[in-house]
């Protein structure tokens, strides 16, 4: 088998058994990126030399027994909104031009401590605001599964790097579906952990009450291992939960597990092929011993407006730190300090980011605060309650991830509201802070991947990952690979 096609744990075990060297694996991965990424542009920064130096050090650590993680020596890559010490971190925005953080995010540092080789940084929608990876200042990332298809977003680069076998696993972030939707569109496995499970220290904030870092990989076992490394309490993130890192036990037994299908997630607006494929997956889980049942969750329709009000409000506050003074882009000409702020921000932010900052400023402004922001927080409470009710009856909720498969590049950019509506199945999970995983469950008639979404109650990562694992043990959708282009053909 080609090296690049192996899973993270397969590579890790071969390194551990001394069948492969870390430098050899890293070199192969870098050559592979060089060959493949011209067509897909998942990477915005490749750390060639740094990765090789890191690889040598890690090999020594493995040899002398200090690095024992099953992921030691395995090359991976990171979404460009996580700080990496000394390595460009742009959030795909002009306003962070040239920004080299002086520290690494906790999730990245934990992986480095476990012996991860960091290949580089991955493309995304500017400030993670978007569902297509098209709003990036670095240009569009291409989905390897179709001609001229967008990878979804905002963690589009993180999903494509795994789908195109450029990295063995990646880190993404999920504020309203940004790990799950691109994972579904690119046929890979992705997890948004429970809010507070992974430290957000060093993650450039979009909407702090919703943001969560999570892994994207080739199968459930791989991302379970990554989760065990990156999770756990961090005093540098006061919302991180006081718990040890999560150890997932996958036993492939889902007999008697109660799985709920929210009827309202399968109604109008859902593509019929996606629907058929997700329902077929439900059948499969039934065959494996789960009890699958439909139930009603009508509050779903309020999730998108509530989500966009809350996310934009937090964004308008979080992004006020970009002022042309402390880091990143500063306008070259200005009259005074206020003018420096206005010009740096107006020239530095892209249109979608400006739009969300303005929506946020509006819903928080005096006279509108109660009608929008406060109302959205009340709706959030209602959505949380409706999940609580569902989890009294079910261990896990099965649903589609997105109403369609991957869209054509450019198809959604012209109509922001249309793009927002595509987040219908994912945003409620962030509002309620729940863990949610996507696993591949089929392909449409054009050969584009479809992903199912498994959502559990807070801190039930083990539960949902075991269901996903059981599904992958008896299906092979996650092992299918796109036919890759090399060179500049795409």
């Amino acid at each position, binding site marked *: 088998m080609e090296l690049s096609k192996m899973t993270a744990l397969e590579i890790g075990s071969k390194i551990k058994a001394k069948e492969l060297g870390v430098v050899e694996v890293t070199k192969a991965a870098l050559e592979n990126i060089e060959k493949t990424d011209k067509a897909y542009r998942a990477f915005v920064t490749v750390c060639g030399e740094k990765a090789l130096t890191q690889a040598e050090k890690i090999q020594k650590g493995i040899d002398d027994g200090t690095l024992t993680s099953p992921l030691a020596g395995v090359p991976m890559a990171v979404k460009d909104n996580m700080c990496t010490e000394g390595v460009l971190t742009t959030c795909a925005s002009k306003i962070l031009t040239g920004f080299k953080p002086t520290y690494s995010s906790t999730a990245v540092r934990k992986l480095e401590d476990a012996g991860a080789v960091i290949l580089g940084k991955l493309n995304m929608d500017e400030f993670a605001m978007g569902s297509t990876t098209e709003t990036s200042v670095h240009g569009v990332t291409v989905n390897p599964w179709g001609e001229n298809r967008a990878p979804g977003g905002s963690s589009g680069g993180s999903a494509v790097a795994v789908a195109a076998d450029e990295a063995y696993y990646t880190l993404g972030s999920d504020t309203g579906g940004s790990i799950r939707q691109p994972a579904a569109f690119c046929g890979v496995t992705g997890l948004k952990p429970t809010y507070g499970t992974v430290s957000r220290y060093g993650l450039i904030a979009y909407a702090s009450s919703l943001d969560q870092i999570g892994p994207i990989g080739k199968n459930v076992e791989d991302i379970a291992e990554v989760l065990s490394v990156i999770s756990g309490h961090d005093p540098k993130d006061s919302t991180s939960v006081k718990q040890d890192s999560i150890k997932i036990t996958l036993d492939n037994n889902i007999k008697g597990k109660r799985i709920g299908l929210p009827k309202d997630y399968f109604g109008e607006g859902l593509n019929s092929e996606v629907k058929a494929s997700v329902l077929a997956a439900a059948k499969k889980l039934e065959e494996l011993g789960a009890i699958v049942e439909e139930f009603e969750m009508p509050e779903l329709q309020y999730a998108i407006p509530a989500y966009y009000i809350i996310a934009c409000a937090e964004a308008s506050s979080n992004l006020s730190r970009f002022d042309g003074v402390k880091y990143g882009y500063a306008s070259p000409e200005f009259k005074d300090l206020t003018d420096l702020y206005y010009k740096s921000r*107006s020239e530095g932010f892209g249109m979608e980011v400006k739009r969300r900052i303005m929506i946020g400023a509006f819903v928080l402004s005096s006279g509108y605060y109660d009608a929008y922001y406060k109302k959205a927080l009340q709706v959030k409470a209602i959505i949380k309650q409706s999940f609580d009710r569902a989890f009294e009856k079910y261990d896990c909720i099965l649903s589609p991830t997105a109403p369609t498969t991957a869209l054509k590049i450019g198809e959604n950019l012209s109509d922001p509201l249309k793009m927002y509506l595509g987040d219908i199945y994912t945003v409620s999970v962030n509002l309620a*802070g729940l863990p949610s995983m996507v696993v591949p469950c089929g392909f449409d008639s054009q050969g584009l991947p479809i992903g199912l979404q498994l959502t559990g109650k807070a801190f039930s990562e083990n539960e949902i990952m075991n269901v996903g694992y059981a599904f992958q043990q008896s299906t092979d959708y996650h092992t299918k690979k796109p036919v890759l282009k090399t060179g500049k053909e795409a």
Partner: protein
Amino acid sequence: MKITDEMIDYIGILARLKLQDEEKETAKTELEKIINYMDTLNTLDTTGIEAMSHAFPVKNVFREDVIKPSVDREIITLNAPAKKDGCFKVPKTVE
């Protein structure tokens, strides 16, 4: 709701964003569409529901006040577009 020129200008001041005339027109139309969509929340009765900021109970986090070395000025200002004597440099703010 109608988004007027005055409203867009006011939002621009709050957000410290200056839009070109063309951008302003597009923003007006788009914001109006998006905010009207957000008004669908009004069809849900939320009387008596407490606004929820965090999905889980979040309390103030305290720690012992122990003196530790802070990050070097040199490092903090490493990414500054303009700096002088270990400080961020900005245009004159007080006459």
